[in-house]
């Protein structure tokens, strides 16, 4: 017989024989939900994923995670309009995570450290890429990683496309562009500069390419008809900006008028200011609210002393003066003439009213479809009507940005890869979006956004030095830690701690957790308390 008195004295922990799991009507499951930032990133970065690494100071891991999707973190950290931050859940709490500044830190850090990405094992397939802007380079990068032999034909004398010939240096220093492109070159991509493709079919045939990615951007400046006796005083913004990369600095007048409301207009105005224009006036048909330019860019331009004149159209350009008509917005927000005219002094007028794709050499390609607004039609695999010819970036219908172009490059690469192997690539489906309501935000510490340093105004007005500085390592770390890890377990142990039934097994650092269904009663406390919303309660199936 037992030494212990019968029934009133029990063995320790004998309750394990009682499997309370059979009380359950709902069961918890760990499920990674799609963070809004990831969903919002045109380059398809796993932002939450790399922030998670960065939070621990694992910068190389973080950087490599970015590099799986995007070869240009240092560039994107500077010029991406970061739609991820617009949708970042933290924005509903205090301020969005400054994703771009951490990304920039990682990109710069990688350049300093000389981290490199290796090309994949050779597949023997040859791909031609036309145009070395972000889209072309991104495709080249991904295809190289997949082991395909990539050849780039670039019309210009240097690589980078608009990243070099459009975006001014004070926003994107060229050493950064060089460094991130050099990394791709080092992967063994065969690059031919000053090689403008005029005949696509011939180029394919000569090079025995298995597939082509077109990424020629949109380089033709649009014109508007403005009566002017002296068209020489009217220049286009792209020409000006491109000229900045030449040997001689372009000449401009004392009083400069920039006509347009997009980012290019702003860049032209700020460049003119730096080139010594005493007065730079931005003229736009509509008002500030309706400007397509990004707000931060406008703000910075104003800070630097760029003057603005909203609701105005240039009607006439004469020597030293221009005539503008005041406009008013109708209910739909379109500008309508008022008949009220005014003359203003101006030595140079810079037009920044948009760009078009130079599709001339593509006119005869069989099957390739060019829409009325001059862009190339692609299907959802980024393939044009011509089999094996894909296209992306500014030349296809989409938002025109470095990030979209880079994303297109990646997407096209995946489909080209599939095409070359004879299958269809399908993006793996992701779980539902980790919307703000999924989060239990009580747990997060209060933390305001870190701010990047700015160059002082005097220097901004007079030089092409980079305006916005980077975060230092400790600030970048703290900024990364502001991330709420939306929808993704970040191993806070809360579920493990709050389960009244010890029904959660901690598997150890990096291995996350498991529900012990023998004892889980299905109370839902773990799911309710999980700060990041990484646990779902589903109906029990028996």
């Amino acid at each position, binding site marked *: 017989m037992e*030494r*212990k*008195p*019968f*029934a*009133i*004295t*029990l*063995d*320790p922990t004998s309750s394990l024989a009682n499997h309370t799991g059979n009380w359950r009507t709902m069961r918890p499951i760990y499920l990674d939900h799609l963070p809004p930032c990831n969903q919002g990133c045109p380059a398809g970065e796993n932002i939450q994923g790399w922030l998670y690494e960065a939070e621990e100071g694992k910068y190389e891991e973080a950087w490599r995670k970015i590099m799986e999707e995007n070869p240009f973190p240092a560039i994107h950290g500077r010029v991406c309009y970061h739609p991820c931050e617009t949708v970042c859940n933290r924005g509903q709490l205090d301020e969005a995570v400054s994703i771009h500044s951490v990304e920039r830190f990682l990109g710069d850090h990688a350049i300093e450290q000389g981290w490199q990405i290796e090309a994949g094992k050779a597949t023997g397939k040859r791909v031609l890429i036309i145009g070395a802007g972000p889209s072309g380079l991104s495709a080249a990068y991904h295809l190289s990683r997949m082991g395909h032999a990539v050849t780039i034909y670039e019309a210009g004398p240097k690589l980078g496309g608009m990243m070099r010939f459009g975006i001014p240096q004070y926003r994107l220093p060229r050493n950064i562009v060089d460094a991130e492109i050099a990394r791709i070159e080092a992967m063994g991509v065969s690059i031919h500069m000053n090689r403008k493709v005029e005949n696509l079919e011939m180029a394919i045939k000569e090079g025995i390419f298995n597939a082509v990615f077109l990424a020629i951007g949109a380089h033709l400046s649009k014109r508007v008809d403005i009566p002017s006796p002296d068209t020489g005083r009217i220049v286009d913004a792209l020409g000006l900006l491109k000229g900045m990369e030449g040997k001689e600095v372009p000449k401009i007048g004392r009083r400069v008028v920039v006509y347009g409301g997009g980012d290019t207009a702003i860049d032209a105005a700020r460049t003119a200011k730096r080139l010594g224009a005493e007065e730079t006036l931005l003229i736009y048909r509509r008002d500030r609210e309706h400007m397509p330019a990004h707000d931060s860019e406008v703000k910075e331009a104003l800070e630097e002393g760029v003057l603005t004149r909203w609701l105005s159209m240039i009607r006439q350009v004469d020597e030293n003066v221009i005539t503008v008509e005041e406009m008013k917005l109708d209910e739909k927000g379109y500008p309508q003439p008022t008949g009220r005219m005014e003359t203003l002094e101006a030595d140079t007028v810079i037009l920044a009213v948009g760009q078009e794709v130079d599709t001339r050499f593509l006119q005869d390609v069989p099957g390739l479809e060019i829409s009325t607004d001059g862009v190339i039609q692609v299907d959802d695999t980024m393939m044009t009507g011509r089999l094996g010819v894909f296209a992306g970036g500014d030349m296809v219908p989409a938002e025109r940005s470095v990030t979209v172009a880079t994303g297109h490059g990646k997407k096209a690469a995946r489909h080209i890869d599939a095409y070359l192997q004879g299958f269809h690539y399908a993006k793996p489906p992701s779980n539902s979006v980790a919307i703000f309501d999924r989060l239990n935000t009580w747990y997060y510490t209060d933390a305001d956004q870190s701010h990047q340093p700015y160059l002082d105004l005097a220097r901004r007005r007079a030089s092409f030095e980079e305006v916005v500085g980077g975060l230092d390592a400790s600030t970048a770390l703290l900024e990364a830690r502001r991330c709420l890890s939306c929808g993704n377990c970040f191993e806070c142990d809360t579920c493990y701690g709050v389960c009244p039934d010890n029904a959660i097994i901690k598997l150890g650092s990096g291995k996350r957790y498991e529900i012990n269904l023998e004892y889980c009663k299905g109370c839902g406390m773990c799911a309710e308390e999980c700060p990041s919303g990484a646990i779902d309660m589903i109906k029990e199936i028996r």
Partner: protein
Amino acid sequence: MKQQIEGSQAVAQAVALCRPEVMACYPISPQTHIVETLSRKVKAGEVGNCQFLNVESEFGALSVLIGASAMGARSYTATTSQGLLFMAEAVYNAAGLGLPIVMTIANRAIGAPINIWNDHSDSMAMRDAGWLQLFAEDNQEAVDLHIQAFRLAEELSCPVMVCMDGYILTHAFEEVDLPTQEQVDEFLPPFEPVQVLDPQDPVSIGAMVGPEAFTEVRYLAHHKHLQALEAIPRISQAFQDIFQRSSGGLLKLYHTDEAETLLLALGSVNGTIKDAVDDLRAKGWRVGAIQLCSYRPFPLHALRHVVHNAKRVIVIEKDLAVGNGGIVSSEVKLALQGLPTLVDTVIAGLGGRPISKAAVIDTVKAACLEGLEEPHFLDLNWVAINRELTRQAEQRRSGPTPENLLREVGSADWKTG
């Protein structure tokens, strides 16, 4: 060593010699002198490392001992009357958990009306709690039973009450032979618990038990008492071997051989009874006496064996099962079931009323010659009772019976304590 000593002091000395480790006490007359003495001894460092806790109630006192005993400490307390009832829940619990606590009951009546004097109502109220109950006839036996009680309790893992009559014994100065520490140590081995709270070997004590096992648990408690029927005489014998005197056991017999009439009682009244037996025998009455030393377990078989030739057993008991009669006599009847022996119940000595030798002799005679009504109340003041009954019948608001009676018997100066 023999000495003239107050019963309480003697018991306290004996308890101290048993090397208790934890005591928790709450004062109540007539137990006070015991705990006062022990408290002094502990504080003076005469009881080793024993811890003496002055607690907030008897319930607290016994609860402390439940914890101490479960932790493997030899544990002791003393109480009586209201105090015993106040601890009632813990009394049952200690037995249910099988914790070998020893407790002195300085037997006293239970109120209302409040009464500090001796009878056995208190320990009788706890008779089914699962504790062993041993009754001392005199202070020597009180001392001896305490020493035996620890050994008995710890051997069986069952708590023991040692009952001694309040005031009559607790406050009486008599000659008592107090044992030496060596003798006690030889008789009483160190406490080795059957279960203990031990972080090295954790157990859960005090589970909730449902219908599926409760009866078995209760049977096992009963079984312990059956084992005690064997252990009590054996331990009493072992005691005699070391201390050279007979004390305790289940029953103590006085001229029972050949007796036609046997008197049976618990506690100190046995002294008076023995005197009465001597007188009656001198006059040729064939009487004898049985001292019921172990009331729990109730020695049914031993009693039946002793009594089976007698014509009549007169149970003199200091308690009353209100609405029924004798508590002890009911159990004696059970023991004698099927025998022709008559059993009389004599309710006597309630609330400290003296039981005189003459009254015992008269009762024996009356029983033998005329027979007694059942139950028989010794020395009942029928005049007072009848008047009160009449008053109650006449008026609704007849006032409180105890005060009315006090006025009747004209002795309103009775002390209360």
